């Protein structure tokens, strides 16, 4: 009971009836008989085995053009639009803070003038009163710390975004 290959595609509700009284002749010729077309003996309806059409019959569909894979998002954003401006700002802030802190430390080490000796100058400015060295000395180590923390957080954000992009 096989269906010849190359048979025209039959509607899905087409059935092959194995009983001789219910269209066996058309089955031998390889024609598909539908439920509606086959002569039905009402007394033997319960004995009729109904066999679903083979997959070869229903699978021969006209070729459809390939649809794009919907699982992959379309590249609808340009490279410029993908740049995270806040991440850029975080990197810039980290660089500025670290450079400011290190610069402050260098300033403290290079501009401290010994009180006893020829280095002191009679001045009445804020810098001469050691205000600036005191402020820089209080802020510089913490500026370096905050800058490094910013760099670490920016790196963490980069890694999390990379993981989201590549691990899925």
């Amino acid at each position, binding site marked *: 009971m096989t269906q010849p290959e190359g048979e025209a595609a039959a509607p899905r509700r087409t059935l092959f009836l194995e009983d001789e009284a219910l269209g066996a002749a058309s089955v031998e010729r390889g024609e598909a008989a539908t439920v509606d077309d086959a002569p039905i003996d009402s007394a033997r309806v319960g004995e009729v085995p109904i066999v679903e059409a083979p997959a070869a019959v229903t699978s021969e569909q006209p070729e459809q053009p390939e649809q794009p894979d919907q699982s992959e998002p379309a590249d*609808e954003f340009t490279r410029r639009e993908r740049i995270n401006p806040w991440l850029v700002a975080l990197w810039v802030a980290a660089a500025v803070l670290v450079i400011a802190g290190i610069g402050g430390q260098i300033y403290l080490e290079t501009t401290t*003038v010994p009180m006893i000796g020829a280095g*002191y100058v*009679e001045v009445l400015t804020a810098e001469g*009163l*050691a*205000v600036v060295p005191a402020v820089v000395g209080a802020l510089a180590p913490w500026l370096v710390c905050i800058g490094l923390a910013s760099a670490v957080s920016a790196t963490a954000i980069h890694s999390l975004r990379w993981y989201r992009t590549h691990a899925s």
Partner: protein
Amino acid sequence: MQPVRALLRSGLALATAGVLVLGASIAAYVEDVRALGSSSGLVVFRNGYVSVEGRSPTMVQSVPFDLSFEPTVLLCGLVLVVAAIALAAGTWAPHHHER
């Protein structure tokens, strides 16, 4: 963006307050040292040391500039600003710009 804005505003407000109290402290210190120099004939040297005019530098005495909470306020504001930027960077998503 509500938490980002709140963090940014509070951080900027705290940093501004830190700068203001730091400036007020510096102004008060400079005023004190100038008043000391003008009233007692002291010469103010670099690094905040003062000396009696005409005497040797070994007679100088220190007038230090001490900071208390001012840098802490400024740095806390800075930390809040950086945290706001980090939060915005972590929650940012690409979007089309208006053309």
